[in-house]
């Protein structure tokens, strides 16, 4: 019965979010149009850069479009992990549904994770659409030789990002305003994480800082797997590093969230916004 509920509750959140999402039909369709347009922009940009491939791109197959496509697609996981929990809480506070959710016997972590599930699934779908556009319309060559490694890397990446996202959620619960953690991590990841250009183009004094970010290791591993068709063994270092990030950030994030929740209940501000 308990396992049944553990599966059915997240499913009911998925149904809720899907029904609400498709009720805004135009917006729903527009999201996929947006993916196509941004892919197209990077395709044209890559044509400009294309002929003069820099040495820094050679470790990733030399195709800038493929490089950047993987970068922007998988950075979506970072964005959704960082913002999903806090935005779900914020949105429930603003809509007025948070109190009704919290007064049920379902635990707060279960509500939080189930509320974010749709965002993660939708992000995965968006990434697939990016890849489909890339491969079938723009002729990108992707290798799916080690799907297990890809799944492990994605799982560890999401878990690390979720740890940071939980800090943000704790921040929102206590202070009712945007978390500076999100801002710092997003800016640092965009600048140093190798999303739009390889980390090797950064000045040598800046490069060590990029390795403090989980996204740097995640993108490196994903590009090795998808662009070079590297085997699992080639990314074991990134697997270890991401495991370390996940092992540290996730428990810390959960602790921060638990603390934030207790503070808000004590201060009576849980449902305020």
């Amino acid at each position, binding site marked *: 019965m308990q396992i*049944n*509920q553990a599966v*059915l*509750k997240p499913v*009911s*959140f998925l*149904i*809720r979010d899907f*029904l*609400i999402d498709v*009720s*805004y039909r135009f917006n729903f369709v527009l999201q996929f149009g947006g993916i196509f347009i941004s892919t197209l922009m990077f395709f044209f940009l890559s044509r400009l850069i294309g002929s003069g491939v820099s040495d820094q791109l050679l470790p990733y197959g030399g195709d800038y479009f493929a490089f950047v496509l993987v970068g922007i697609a998988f950075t979506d996981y970072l964005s959704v992990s960082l913002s999903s929990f806090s935005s779900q809480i914020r949105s429930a506070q603003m*809509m*007025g*549904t948070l*109190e*009704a*959710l*919290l*007064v*049920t*016997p*379902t*635990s707060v972590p279960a*509500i939080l994770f189930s509320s974010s599930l749709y965002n993660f699934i939708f992000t995965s779908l968006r990434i697939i659409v990016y890849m489909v556009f890339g491969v079938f319309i723009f002729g990108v060559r992707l290798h799916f030789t080690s799907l297990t490694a890809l799944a492990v890397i994605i799982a560890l990446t999401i878990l690390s990002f979720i740890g940071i996202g939980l800090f943000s959620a704790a921040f929102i619960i*206590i*202070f009712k305003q945007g978390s500076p953690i999100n801002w710092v991590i997003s800016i640092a990841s965009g600048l140093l994480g190798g999303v739009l250009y390889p980390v090797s183009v950064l000045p040598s004094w800046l490069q060590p800082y990029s390795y403090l970010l989980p996204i740097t290791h995640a993108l490196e591993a994903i590009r090795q797997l998808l662009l070079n068709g590297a085997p699992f063994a080639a990314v074991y270092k990134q697997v270890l590093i991401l495991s370390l990030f996940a092992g540290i950030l996730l428990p810390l994030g959960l602790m921060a969230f638990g603390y934030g929740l*207790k503070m808000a*209940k*004590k*201060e*009576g501000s*849980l*449902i305020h916004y």
Partner: protein
Amino acid sequence: MSYTVELKDITKVFIERSWGTLLLRRPIRKTEALRGVSLSVERGEIFGLLGPNGAGKTTLIKILATLILPDGGSGSVCGYDLCSQSSRVRRMIGLVNTSERSFYWRLTGKQNLNFFAMLYNLSGVQKKKRIDELLELVGLNEKADTLFMKYSDGQKQRLAIARALLSDPEILLMDEPTKSLDPLAASALIDLTVNELASKKGKTVLWCTHNLKEAEKVCSRLAIIHKGKVIASGDLQHMKSLIATESFYQMSVDNCPIEKLQKIGITPLRRIHNNGHLEFEVKAQGKDIPLFIKDLVGMGINVHACKEKPVELDEVFEKLVSHAD
């Protein structure tokens, strides 16, 4: 006596925190919301929590709903401790609040109930049966597949009751349930609560309101909360007896100058002239009334009516609150 809800010396102080208080060490602003609230609610009764806005009623309801932790004191719901057994407490309660925004407006009434039913651990046939029963109970079965945003205020409130009843809770916490309803819808809701939920289903109801007439109509016992303290509690009779030393009488006599009345010791209050009669209220003790009538008749003033004015909850409330101030 079996008490479903027991609260003892509950205190709550709200602290306003900001960047200024954290970084600049500005003084923290504190608001004392509850100051040693103790009360007991019996199984199956409708217990009223009365108080002006800001008295602490909603804070108390939220503590009972485990949404806020008390700072001091102790409390239990159906024997479960509010702080250490909050998950069990939540299985025992259903919260009906005033916010129509606590539903998903782009889902139908039934889709909303389906979603919340899962959170109350209902699934499959049991869930479907329960939802159908509740829609029938609150009279929304024909509106089940209508989007929530198209519901009237009364229908929204009835759906809130249906949601609160999903887990078949022992206790219903109703926080100003008639606040946004027109008199007809409010009356229907009161009827549903008193006759169906309390009488037939045996639910214990905590009815939180600042509407005294409504409380008088709905509640068997009540507590008046003022500035975070319970200033009186008990059944209606007991409440009225608290100010019973001062009786008011309503009199109707022939039109006459006020001075004549004052001459025999009557200080007329709330005077109105009606069809050649002077109607007024007078504060007096029961033994004085025959003397007043005798004196009036002696002065040639006919007395058309004289009756003791029933004590209303408004008066009890006003009296107790002003005394507490």
